[in-house]
């Protein structure tokens, strides 16, 4: 695959949008890391370094298509066109957040965009994706589901059951495995006896592919192929994206379990830099535009922080609301 070439179907505007989104994820995560002390939750997982996966994969689907996410969900949220203000305010625990401050970082979701939610339970997204895909299939809607999960999650029983069912029922689900080499502190090679987790696809009877997860075009192309297959009723694909998370497990993790050499080595393969160079070579953008985009991105992030700080804390009187669609008497203290 020559991913040096931009996909023919991408207009200049689309190509630039891809860049903007990746940069937005990067700057967003940088900012919440800086604000970790103010945000206070120790369970905020930055996506830094993995931007190409969410953005590349989501570029291959339409607005009506669905995604399920993970505990590390900000990138997926932004890639599926979620509003950055609402995302930031949620992480800040404010009423103006996308889940009204009830969910926080690990549960950001935007159902208006068919982003079906980050998830605190490692491996819980893919089983849900089955049902979403089944609903689409039963109603002949032609919609597909991308379900993101990590190398760590791949060792959950839930993944085995999901891939088997998706394969057997030919469900329009695409399994996007973000292999960033670690599940929290645990190296993938100490948690599985094979290096390429996509090998598993064979055992289920679906297609398994490996892509460079730091190459947004490669991720896009593989996902596009899988999506086309799924829409035609050809069933599921497992796409293993090899990548690396730049930051600790969370914004507050000391990250002593990975060597500096390893981190530096991966930083040389920055997904944003790689793509930016292509855009420059393809004469899609120039230095002036780059600067403009960078400034605009930073400004938007800054605005989202302002928005969050201005947003009120949730009203404690509403804490028992929203449990049921048809409310029942909860009682309380």
């Amino acid at each position: 695959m020559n991913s040096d070439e931009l996909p023919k179907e991408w207009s200049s505007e689309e190509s630039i949008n891809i860049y903007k989104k990746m940069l937005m994820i990067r700057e967003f995560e940088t900012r919440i890391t800086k604000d970790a002390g103010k945000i206070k939750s120790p369970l905020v997982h930055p996506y830094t370094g993995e931007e190409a996966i969410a953005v590349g994969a989501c570029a291959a689907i339409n607005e009506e298509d669905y995604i399920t996410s993970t505990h590390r969900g900000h990138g997926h949220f932004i890639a599926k066109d979620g509003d950055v203000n609402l995302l930031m305010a949620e992480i800040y625990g404010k009423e103006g957040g996308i889940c009204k401050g009830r969910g926080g970082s690990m549960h950001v979701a935007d159902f208006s965009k068919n982003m079906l939610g980050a998830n605190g339970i490692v491996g819980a997204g893919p089983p849900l994706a089955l049902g979403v895909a089944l609903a689409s299939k039963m109603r002949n809607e032609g919609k597909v589901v991308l379900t993101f999960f990590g190398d760590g999650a791949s060792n959950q029983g839930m993944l085995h059951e999901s891939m088997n069912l998706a394969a057997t029922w030919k469900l329009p689900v695409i399994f996007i495995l973000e292999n960033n080499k670690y599940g929290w502190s645990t190296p993938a090679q100490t948690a599985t006896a094979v290096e390429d987790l996509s090998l598993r696809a064979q055992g289920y009877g679906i297609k398994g592919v490996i892509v460079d997860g730091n190459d947004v075009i490669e991720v896009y192309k593989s996902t596009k192929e899988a999506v086309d297959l799924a829409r035609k009723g050809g069933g599921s694909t497992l796409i293993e994206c090899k990548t690396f998370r730049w930051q600790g497990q969370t914004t507050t993790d000391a990250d002593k379990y990975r060597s500096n050499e390893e981190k530096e080595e991966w930083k040389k393969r920055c997904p944003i830099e790689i793509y930016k160079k292509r855009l420059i070579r393809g004469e899609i953008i120039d230095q002036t535009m780059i600067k403009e985009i960078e400034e605009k991105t930073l400004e938007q992030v800054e605005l989202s922080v302002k928005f969050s700080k201005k947003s009120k804390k949730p009203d404690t009187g509403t804490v028992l609301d929203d449990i049921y669609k048809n409310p029942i008497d909860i009682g309380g203290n």
Partner: protein
Amino acid sequence: MTTETIKMKGSDAIKLAIEEEMERDESVFIMGEDIGQYGGAFSVTAGLLERFGPERVRDTPISENAILGCAVGAAMAGMRPIAEVMFADFLCVCMEMIVNQAAKARYMYGGQVNVPVTIRVPFGTGIMGAAQHSQSFESWFMHVPGLKIVLPSDASDFKGLMKTAIRDNDPVMFFEHKRTYYYTNEVPLDKEFMIPFGQARKFTEGDDVTIVATGAMVQESIIAANKLKEENIQCEVIDPRTLVPLDKKTILGSIEKTGKLVIVDEGCKTCSVSAEIAALVAEEGFQYLKRNIVRINTPDVPIPYAPNLEREIIPSAKLIQNQVKNLI
């Protein structure tokens, strides 16, 4: 035997107990996610890998079913495994191995096999963990015959009860409230310091009101009791320490004296620990009661992320204090 004690925090007391038992008995080993080099999500097991090596301090894949199955199987084969479930919430992923296997093996196989497994479970609110990292599930497991349920509230109890749990020949669920990891008190260094199951602990004595509390709610209740004392209301704060077996005698004995019962429990109210204790007292201690039983729980709501919302629903010393005053 030594009578020496040392001040330490809850998480260190758990580690000390595990360390001593691993040293004493080769068949004791521990496994879980990120417990080795990383030292565990709450640093409970930090240093154990260096001390005992990777054979006995085992980092696992993120596979709760496999962790629990492996621990239960090893126990059936005569080992004394300790399995860590990183957050209580993840118990949902591995219920099968606990409820249908560990709890039932001995009985359903006609007493042929023992299952001496200890299942360590950090739980509860206090870290902005939201709906899937904050729950209190201890009452669920009280409903499963065959399990023993331990829920200590401070460091010395952590040590004494953990040692008993490891040496016990049945499956023990060992619940560790995250907030109590940081509470410090004097912990006996005696390597035979063991607290028997089924013995409640009285933190304060009093004739006016009995307060039964568990986990982090014990501290809240003690704070409330101390405040109430200033107003000349004497409370007896009782921590059952083990929910199965439950020390009915101490609870009923106290109510016989006070005639009033307040139960404080962080779990959601319906079918909670407090519900079980209230039912017990209604059944066996009705004649002692001079007032209705008061239960202070988290309402039946998923735990919200925003700290002000979380505070709103979790029982606090202030709320306990007010409820006791209302009762009197």
